[in-house]
């Protein structure tokens, strides 16, 4: 088959490719937020964490020449921002949603400030594994050039699912999220559990950010993330705090986000901006369908301020 002869098949292929490529940050942020929210706290600041992660990953990758060190740095940055969130939230009478909004502004601002000198230079990117060597359709091969991070994220979802159900740590996080009194009665510090859960959540969100700057789209600029972090937080709600559902939801989101560019590549340019807003419209639509004023959502941690 000759190059370009697949015609309109480009669109579903690009959407599939998008589902794989674009979904990775959604996946990491939503899994991280899943851990945080299961412990009974919501971190809306992950949007800022994502951008900070993207910036620090790009910076460290540029300075050291190793993209994997960049990923690690992004994770550490995210964990520090998570610790900041948890630290402020553990003060009495501080609202976690408001702190999240503050850290969203702070993280984005700090990333833009520190990232100014990084817009020009090119940093080494993360490698991709070519799963499409058997095919001679270039578009399909492009789709199947998959990054290791995606595979790690996919593996992480069932691991978290298992960990929440069977491990001691999973049980502790869930206890803190369902009833802080019960956790306290067992002799555990709820604040400490939530601090750790928020730090791990921030770590994963930071790694999600590193994927943005080091693989796809693969550069650092100030328009890198436009609400992916906050969309991922919303995604956790309709994934019912279930890591496996987070995986499917992230894939659906990635596909929706790829729709605009895919249609543009076959010449459908009208409504480009509206198609780009597809993930937000999809989130809103799914939240409208799945939420109900009559009952709390099934699976919602009882201590979570957002569902009360």
């Amino acid at each position, binding site marked *: 088959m000759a190059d370009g002869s697949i015609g309109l098949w480009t669109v579903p292929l690009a959407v599939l490719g998008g589902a794989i490529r674009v979904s990775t940050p959604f996946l990491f942020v939503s899994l991280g937020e899943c851990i945080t929210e299961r412990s009974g706290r919501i971190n*809306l600041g992950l949007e800022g964490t994502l951008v900070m992660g993207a910036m620090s990953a790009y910076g460290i990758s540029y300075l050291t020449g190793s993209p994997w060190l960049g990923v690690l740095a992004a994770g550490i940055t995210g964990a520090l921002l998570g610790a900041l969130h948890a630290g402020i939230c553990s003060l009495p009478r501080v609202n976690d949603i408001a702190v999240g909004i503050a850290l969203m502004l702070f993280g984005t*601002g700090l990333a833009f400030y520190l990232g100014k000198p990084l817009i020009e230079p090119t940093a080494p990117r993360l490698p991709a594994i070519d799963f499409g060597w058997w095919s001679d359709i270039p578009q399909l091969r492009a789709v199947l050039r998959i990054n290791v991070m995606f595979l790690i994220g996919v593996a992480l979802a069932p691991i978290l699912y298992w960990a929440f159900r069977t491990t001691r740590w999973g049980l502790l996080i869930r206890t803190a999220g369902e009833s802080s009194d019960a956790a306290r009665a067992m002799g555990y510090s709820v604040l400490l559990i939530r601090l750790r859960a928020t730090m791990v959540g921030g770590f994963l969100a930071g790694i999600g950010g590193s994927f943005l700057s080091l693989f796809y789209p693969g550069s650092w600029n100030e328009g890198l993330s436009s609400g992916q972090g906050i969309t991922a937080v919303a995604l956790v709600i309709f994934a019912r705090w279930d890591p496996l559902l987070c995986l499917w939801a992230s894939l659906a989101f990635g596909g929706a986000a790829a729709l605009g560019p895919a249609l543009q590549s076959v010449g459908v340019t009208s409504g480009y901006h509206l198609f780009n807003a597809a993930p937000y419209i999809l989130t809103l639509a799914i939240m409208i369908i799945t939420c109900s004023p009559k009952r709390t959502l099934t699976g919602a941690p009882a201590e979570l*301020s957002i569902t009360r």
Partner: protein
Amino acid sequence: MTAEAADPAEAVGTVAPAADPGILQRHGGAIEYVLIPGAALAGALAVFGIFVAMFGKNPLDLYFYMYYGAFGTWFSWQNTLTRAAPLILTALCTALPAQLGMVIIGGEGALLIGALSATSAALALQGLPPLIVQIAMVIGGVIGGGLWIMLAGALRQYRGVNETISSLLLVYIALAVLNHLVEGAMRDPASLNKPSTREIGAANMIGSIPGTDVHWGLVFGLIAAVAAYILIYHTVFGFAARVAGGNIRAARIVGLGVSKLILTICFLAGGAAGLAGMVEVAAVQGRANANLAAGYGFTGILVAFLARQNPLAIIPVAILLGGISASGGLLQRRLGLPDASVLVLQGIIFVFVLGSDALYGRIGFLKGKS
């Protein structure tokens, strides 16, 4: 173990502290409401000073240029007040729903939709007397922005969708709608590099307050803030809203129409932000384009929280933060700081202000009086 946000009543209390009716009667409390945010602001400025010192800049220069760029000259005062105008209006978009215990952060979206509807109204009525066009723009802006936030309120009331997340998602959707229309149906073919709508016409611009370069939008903002204050603290409607914000079950038991309260408050909140969009079109840009998404909606959230959701306190806080953003240009030119430094400072202030919530009622020498 400290009792953190686990208690729902406390969590609501931090969002809508202004709902406390006794603030102005109790002097100790009033001092607290000035002293603690002031201390938080000073702390944030100190941390920002250390931050720029790490990049080899002199913090004292920083403070001087910030003061000079914000309030040092008549020129900088005018710049500050021009920026404060939309901030007052977008802050109301967060502060009004906060009276009901709702956290709305979508002021930016309502601003964009308000700007679009105001522009559409002006373009549809070309040729009519300017006053009629301007009134139509105000109505268009208020209705457009109002319906946009009312949507978030309705989703919360009828579908249980969290209003914080839905209002933020609506920002991105509003931005897409703006870009779509500005680059498509409403595009002026003459705008090549920067897709824009047609100009609303010089005659229809609302102009400046005589003797200044500050546009009339500031007066709109002041009127809206005072009206919101009267509505919340001196009307039955506002009292009902504060009752519902304090305890929604009690409000239902005494027979308040909570749905109606939520929808009305959200409409007014969005209407204020929509009016900010109208002002940006009718006093600054003269047309709708992507320049409108300048972040006033997001800074407005910070203004509302720093003012502790009190509509009157919003006015000085908006002027203060308008000053900070006005000084951004000077910091860039004189100290070589990136334009994002204003964002960093805003973020630090926000973090400090929220952290300072823990201090209320805990300062020894104020305790006896309050």
